[in-house]
């Protein structure tokens, strides 16, 4: 039990001493995960709308594929991205292995299926309501996409959180493609793995507590935004 107590003490000491190494690691974690989330949203939401409003053969298979990709083991994603960006791989010339870019790419693969699958569901519901309206007023497709996205803001926040949670908490993929290099690709989860392997369990757990606190803060902020949006919609 004393390891838990020690972990809490360590966590608080690190935070209140404004530990520079800790802030560097937390900052990098957030930067990488937020970036991959933004990129995944820009790619994922339009695909979600497209899958929701169009009908073509193979559509349901495509949706099933994205659904099952949500459960893809991160370490497999890491391996695939590694083979792609390795200096001997097809994207080797980019020279992004062991940089944050490779980690963003890996996280992109991890959260894109979540964004596409969940948003398809939400947009499908919305489409049932809006379909006739759009046909009557002959709204152009581009406009309908933006309407769907802006009218489901509160649900999209939930998707953001799901995607962000998967990205920031994941270790298997980013440790392979990032290499856990000090000051370059060392993030919260890879630090936790490293400290565990050094046998420094209190420090590892302390970092876990900090990671959890950050998630909690982000979730609270997101929920407030959701409540605000709902109020606006409901007048």
């Amino acid at each position, binding site marked *: 039990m004393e390891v838990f107590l020690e972990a809490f003490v360590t966590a608080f000491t690190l935070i209140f001493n404004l530990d520079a190494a800790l802030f560097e690691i937390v900052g990098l974690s957030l930067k990488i995960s937020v970036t991959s989330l933004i990129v995944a949203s820009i790619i994922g939401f339009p695909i979600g709308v497209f899958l929701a409003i169009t009908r073509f053969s193979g559509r349901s298979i495509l949706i099933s594929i994205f659904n099952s990709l949500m459960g893809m083991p991160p370490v497999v994603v890491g391996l695939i991205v590694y083979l792609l960006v*390795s200096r001997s791989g097809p994207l080797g010339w980019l020279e992004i292995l062991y940089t944050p870019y490779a980690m963003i790419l890996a996280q992109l693969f991890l959260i894109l299926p979540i964004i596409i699958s969940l948003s398809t569901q939400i947009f499908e519901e919305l489409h049932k309501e809006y379909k006739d309206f759009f046909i009557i007023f002959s709204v152009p497709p581009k406009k309908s996409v933006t309407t769907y996205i802006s009218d489901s803001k509160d649900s999209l926040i939930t998707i953001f959180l799901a995607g962000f949670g998967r990205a920031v908490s994941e270790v298997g993929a980013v440790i392979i493609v990032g290499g856990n290099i000090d000051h370059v690709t060392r993030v919260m989860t890879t630090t936790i793995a490293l400290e565990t*392997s050094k046998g420094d369990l209190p420090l590892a757990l302390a970092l876990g507590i900090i990671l959890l606190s950050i998630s909690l803060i982000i979730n609270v902020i997101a929920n407030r935004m959701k409540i605000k949006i709902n109020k606006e919609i409901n007048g």
Partner: protein
Amino acid sequence: MKNYLNKLILIIIFIFPSSILGKDVLLQSTTSTKNSGFYSYILPIFKNETGINVKVVAVGTGQAIRNAKNCDADILIVHAKSDEEAFVENGYGIKRHNLMYNDFVILGPSEDPAEISNSKSAEEALNSISNLEYGFISRGDNSGTHKKEKNLWKNAQIEISYYSGKWYKETGSGMGTTLNIAAELNAYTLSDRATWITFKNKKDLKILFEGDKNLFNQYGAILVNPEKCPYTNVKESKIFLNWLLSKNGQETIQKYKVNGIQLFYPNAN
């Protein structure tokens, strides 16, 4: 849309500038050298003298060599001599240099149920553990330490794979994780001395057998061959290797101590 994408890519590059600027040396190495704090000690000294930044990826020797074969390294520092020589022979590396050494130790529960501390050789110690069928935790990950351990079982004429999953357990993990498991199960295991000294979750484990010449642990350094790997950063990594092998570099290795104990003994020739 295209315009936005370009802007986005520029913004992303702007957020992570450090990884684009400058030619760093990419070093594939073992967890034993990294976890013992060796690189956090020696790399800043090297950077101070030359201005060159070295990035370390620490994995097991087997994986480090595999990554280097994929050209994902400029220089390799590992500890499995025959594999290193094969790496050079097959044209992946330029030349193998002795860099430094320490030794392996056999750890176990402090009451030492198999009484290996009285053993005269590593083989005898392993035979005592095997006769008692007492728990032994193996790396099982093709690392340098794992290879050394398999050799020791072979020398002791024990067909160890037969016992895998029974009293002999292969973790398939790094040294630290394996030590955590050995400490939890209070079992015997083989570790390099540097990782053991710096490991913090020792619980009831202690060194029970050491000093056999078969427990010698030699680290070698190899530059990756630019003929096989055109993206290799030859210039800076050569400076790094020459520095490590120089009198100055070797003295710096000599001076590294944790809790007053020297972890690595330089022996470049």
